[in-house]
């Protein structure tokens, strides 16, 4: 074994290790899906609140029930799609999934807690606390994914998300806050989603 052969072997091993280390993230389709779904639901909610859309007592329940159904269906379809992608178990991809799973659980806790308070206290404004907190959770998740997958550009979206979270907490009960949340969803979820999707590998080669 000559030194030159050894160097070639090391270069080969390094290129393969780097391929795994820098494998593209596969969460783009999820971010795009949630960005668009949230934006549509928040906009519809705002339109009903401001009477731009006709509504009756059950309209909000139908809206958010439909949101839950579309979310469940979308996640099932996206789960099948992402299982077929290469590099799914690369370090960046595993970190991305773990962080967003944690964020999703935090959001579920937030939603259930807020809905419980709405019912217990007969307080229809209780769920307004959700979206401000949700954006801070998105921000934390985007920070984590950015750091662990070495995607520095994502930090700008994390900061925007935290800013949106602070503003939405401040103006939680204003009807226009729903419209802001819709725009924020497109900005901090859908746009990074498109960026990631464009980098996603179509095949193994």
């Amino acid at each position, binding site marked *: 074994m000559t*030194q030159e052969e050894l160097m070639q*072997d090391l270069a*080969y091993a390094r290129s393969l290790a780097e391929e795994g280390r820098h*494998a593209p993230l596969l969460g783009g389709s999820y971010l795009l899906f949630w960005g668009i779904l949230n934006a549509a639901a928040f906009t519809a909610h705002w339109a009903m609140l401001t009477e731009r859309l006709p509504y009756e007592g059950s309209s909000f329940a139908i809206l958010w029930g439909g949101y839950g159904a579309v979310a469940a269906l979308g996640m099932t379809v996206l789960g099948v799609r992402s299982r077929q992608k290469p590099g799914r178990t690369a370090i960046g991809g595993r970190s991305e999934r773990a962080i967003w799973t944690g964020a999703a659980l935090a959001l579920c806790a937030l939603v259930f807690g807020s809905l419980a308070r709405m019912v217990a206290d007969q307080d229809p404004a209780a769920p307004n606390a959700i979206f401000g907190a949700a954006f801070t959770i998105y921000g934390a998740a985007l920070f984590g994914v950015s750091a662990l997958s070495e995607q520095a550009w994502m930090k700008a979206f994390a900061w925007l998300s935290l800013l949106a979270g602070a503003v939405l907490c401040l103006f939680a009960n204003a009807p226009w806050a729903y419209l802001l949340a819709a725009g924020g969803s497109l900005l901090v979820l859908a746009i990074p989603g498109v960026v990631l999707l464009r980098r996603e590998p179509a095949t193994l080669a």
Partner: protein
Amino acid sequence: MSRFDHTAIDDVIHGRLRLGVMAYLSTVSPAPFNELKVKVNATDGNLSTHLSKLEEAGYVRIEKKFIDKKPRTNVHLTAKGRKAWIDYLTSLQSFLSAAE
């Protein structure tokens, strides 16, 4: 006197294809068999043979399962395999230092 001990090089790892497998698994584990095959540019049979050697040494664990009724083979780097990989890289570093 040379500081390099050639017996310190792990023969199980030191084959071009097995080296590639270990390097890829060091960052992607578990790796689907087909993904690994493309990355190291091997045939099914050739990769299976080399994976068997790594499995015998306890460096990888082969997991076979069905997803959506389709067979799927995943290759995991074991804790022993990760240690062996780090030791292998240390040996190479020692070799290169001795050669300077």
